[in-house]
């Protein structure tokens, strides 16, 4: 079957402004959008820039806008796209570097801001090995451990588009993962960070993040649980 790929192109050394280039491809219904990009690079333009790594929806490298919706190019099949022309654009809200590649540093700066690691200065248990937790305690934050930091959520968030200082859904998902971990001891510190001006209150529950997440994390709910935790002063169980 035939498909036309309409790709956002920008070469920082040659272009003064971005433009769209179209490519006509012979594709299979079961091809992924990533396969189409690979085909364009192989057959038309080896200079086409995009990120990819595992190509199996785990590394989170190839998040981009596909027909206006954030998704992983390696998880979207041609047969799932109803339009004959498939438009591919870079993520919104992050500085553009080239073609479909954006600068992820502001995204990772927000990630680092929420202390994305377990904090527990208490002595190790008597056996000197693991800090144990029950299956139920582990289950409390299981969903938010699934985040692959692809940025599909944060760059679909209108609050983040309007205000780049907003921590954004992905950083909040990470914050949730540690806040609700029974082994963590930094809840007061985390809640201070999350309740600050650039924190969780800038979420206006647009639900774009939940819709964009390729890992099907209920992000808006996780953010709501953080809000409840701030009001209670401790993780809202």
């Amino acid at each position, binding site marked *: 079957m035939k498909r036309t790929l309409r790709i956002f192109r920008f070469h920082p050394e040659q272009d003064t402004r971005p433009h769209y280039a179209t490519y006509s491809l012979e594709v299979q219904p079961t091809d992924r959008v990533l396969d189409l990009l690979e085909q364009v690079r192989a057959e038309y333009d080896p200079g086409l820039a995009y990120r990819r790594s595992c190509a199996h929806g785990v590394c989170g490298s190839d998040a981009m806008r596909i027909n206006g919706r954030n998704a992983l190019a390696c998880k979207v099949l041609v047969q799932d796209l109803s339009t004959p022309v498939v438009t591919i654009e870079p993520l919104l809200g992050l500085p553009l570097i080239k073609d479909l590649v954006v600068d992820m540093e502001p995204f990772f700066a927000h990630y680092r801001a929420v202390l994305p690691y377990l904090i527990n200065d208490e002595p190790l248990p008597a056996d000197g090995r693991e800090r144990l937790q029950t299956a139920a305690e582990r289950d409390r934050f299981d969903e938010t451990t699934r985040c692959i930091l692809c940025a599909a959520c944060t760059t679909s968030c209108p609050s983040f588009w309007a*205000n780049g200082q907003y921590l954004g859904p992905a950083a909040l998902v990470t914050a949730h993962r540690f806040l609700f971990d*029974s082994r*963590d001891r930094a809840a007061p510190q985390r809640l201070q960070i999350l*309740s*600050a001006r650039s924190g969780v209150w800038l979420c206006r529950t647009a639900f774009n993040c939940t819709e964009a997440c390729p890992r099907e994390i209920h992000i808006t709910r996780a953010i709501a649980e953080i809000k409840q935790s*701030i009001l209670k*002063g401790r993780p809202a*169980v």
Partner: protein
Amino acid sequence: MKGGLAMQNTAPRNFETFAWRAMRISAFLLIPLVWGHMILQDVVVGVHNMDLGYVAERWASLFWRIYDGLLLGLAFAHGVNGLRQVLRDYLHGEIARRIVNWGALAFWLILTLVGFAALIAGVRAQ
């Protein structure tokens, strides 16, 4: 509860947390207040039947003055805080944000005081 979930209450106290909570509480209280106001003024009384005499009669009752005072205080605070939040989405400089914060506070305070002055002073029907 065990471990990290059993720690003492350390609710962060900052303005944005207060403002978020105030928005929810005021919205909740405004639902009956606004519906009551609209049904009474627009349906039961009717906008064409309202004149100074009606307002004087209404404000002769302390209940309606408190009712209107709550409506004014909550609705205006809710609206101005909403406006402040929307503007803050688009103003990224610290100085601009301070101006909006203080400007919104002054706007809210002055108009609320004028409204409360009218409520307290009442109306003398001619």
